[in-house]
């Protein structure tokens, strides 16, 4: 095991997979930086430092700096994937899916189905998401609820450096298109990461990060850590929480959620995306449909309100889920009679 930061787990996994497979190519805005050709002192290596050194090692054929043209980035990833390559495209901020959506939604996600299963589209689209930096409405969003609703895409939301390593390797080696969502607030977090060069985590397998048995908390990404904090706080009172890290929202590990709820009878889904037609509502519906007789309390959602993301510190704090909000929801389901 090696201790490393979340962002370094991203970079090292891409580096290792590029070394292993000559078909892996990287493209995006500022993934080289500077003059886009030198990789020298002017180069930035991605604004999240997730492509630093790739250009120097693999050269311009495989590390492609692009203009600020998100449709072209996504479309080029589509064309590369249809032409035998394994593109790893970086969309600098998840919010920018808006300018590139056709290529994701109507092209990449649908090729295999529209073409009768006669092609594969092994594209990985990485994007930084999430609030907490007062970056306001266009640089803070969580977009997984939009992308998870698109058949043909797989959607991954790692919460730890080890999961980045295992899930990103799976994503790059996967023959289907994968959206890889990296939370901005997690980039600088650290954790132990397995050294096995083939360490992979299969999609659709959630992780039980805390086992309690009284209430089920389901989350992913940054908020997973808040759920764990709530679980640790309540453990001192003798209340046991199952905390489930979804890891992937498409495919979805329904079994782990339902198995837990059948024991606890109480579920709180915590999600950073807006509430309407979202992941939290989807999971509450799943539990209501499939585990109704086990329920001891109505499923609860902890999400931001149905508003854009505000700028000012006080407003953003009020907008986001928090440890206190999650704890209050847990206490609500525990107190339900």
């Amino acid at each position, binding site marked *: 095991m090696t201790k490393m930061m979340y962002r370094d787990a991203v970079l090292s996994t891409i580096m290792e997979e590029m070394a292993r497979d000559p078909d892996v190519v990287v493209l995006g805005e500022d993934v080289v930086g500077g003059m886009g050709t030198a990789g020298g002192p002017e180069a930035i290596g991605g604004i999240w430092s997730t492509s630093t050194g790739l250009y120097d090692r693999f050269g311009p*054929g495989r590390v*492609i700096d692009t203009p600020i*043209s998100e*449709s*072209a980035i996504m479309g*080029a990833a589509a064309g*590369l994937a249809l032409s035998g390559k394994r593109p790893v495209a970086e969309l600098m901020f998840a919010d920018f899916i808006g300018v590139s959506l056709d290529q994701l939604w109507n092209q990449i996600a649908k090729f295999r189905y529209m073409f009768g299963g006669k092609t594969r589209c092994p594209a990985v689209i990485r994007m930084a998401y999430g609030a907490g930096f007062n970056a306001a409405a266009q640089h803070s969003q969580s977009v997984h609820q939009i992308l998870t609703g698109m058949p043909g895409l797989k959607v991954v939301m790692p919460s730890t450096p080890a999961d980045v390593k295992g899930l990103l390797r799976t994503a790059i080696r996967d023959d289907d298109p994968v959206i890889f969502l990296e939370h901005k607030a997690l980039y600088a977090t650290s954790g132990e990461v397995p050294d096995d060069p083939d360490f992979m985590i299969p999609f659709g397998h959630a992780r039980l990060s805390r086992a309690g048995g009284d209430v089920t908390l389901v989350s992913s990404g940054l908020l997973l850590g808040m759920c764990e904090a709530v679980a640790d706080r309540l453990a001192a009172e003798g209340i046991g929480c199952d905390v489930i890290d979804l890891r992937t929202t498409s495919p979805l590990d329904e079994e782990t959620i339902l198995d837990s709820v059948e024991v606890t009878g109480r579920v709180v889904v915590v999600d950073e995306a807006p509430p309407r037609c979202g992941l939290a509502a989807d999971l509450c519906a799943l539990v209501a449909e499939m585990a109704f007789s086990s329920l001891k309390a109505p499923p609860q959602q902890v999400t931001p309100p149905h508003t854009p993301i505000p700028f000012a510190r006080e407003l953003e704090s009020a907008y986001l889920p928090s440890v206190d909000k999650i704890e209050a929801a847990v206490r609500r389901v525990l107190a339900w009679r």
Partner: protein
Amino acid sequence: MQLSREALLNAYRAMKTIREFEERLHVEIQTGEIAGFTHLYCGQEAVAVGVCEHLGTQDRIVSTHRGHGHCLAKGCDVDGMMKEIWGSREGLCKGKGGSMHIADIDKGMLGANGIVGAGAPIAVGAALASRADGPGPDGMKVAIAFSGDGACNQGTTFEAMNLAVVTQAPCIFVFENNHYSEHTGVSYAVGTNRDIASRAEAFGMKAWRADGTDFFAVHETMREVLDHVRGGGGPAAVEFDTERFFGHFEGDPQRYRGPGEIERIRAERDCLTRFRNAVTAAGLLDHGDIDALDAQVLGTIEAAVAAARAAPRPTADDVLADVYISY
């Protein structure tokens, strides 16, 4: 450069196959047997064939909603396409794609596309794959983005042209200006009217212009374009001035056409007639050669329609197949 007799016969057969494929669909669609939206390529055959006759399987193309001609010219199977348009599970895309989504990756045909302007960025990606692989014995593999005058107004097309220039990707943007973006004339919808090529030049690439109803002009122009791109000269663009004989979609009442316009373009700007006149006048082929091909092609289309009608239908279970490779 003079084409061989065999090359001339192949080119005519390819153009005639597209023509009869589309003319037959025009008739069949009116019976209600074919579902969905269909956009016919009649009138533009010289472009698809004049471009694709230069290409090998390793070269890739990305097509449009009006894609049957590009598919056939790039080597897609006539029966497989007809079955796809009929919605059979034996269709080229198992009945999942239909007219607007025919693809055959193994043939280098990366898909017709229902979204106007979506193809150009995908073609740049295919060209970047070629660039990563480097030149082969015949120079760089190229990628062709077929676009209409409608797509030339999409931002995706601009983004793609700029990306191709900055990466020097071996991509060729083929603009087929048929004078109508759906139902709106280019004189209104395209700020540069009949000069789409100048837009490509403004992005920093070399561009050509030619009469898209003259097979020989298309073919000769593409020879120059391909020499430039395969030789490492970077991306290029060509604007072909062409004609669309039918409406935007089948069922389009075409009230926007001028009086006698369709009759005039069919009489004066039919690429097949022009081809026949040119080769017979030059003594390269005689009318008998061409008449024989006409009969042969009609037989091919008749057989394809019969096969499509008889082909097995998909079942409800097929809905779930092929969303993912593994899930």
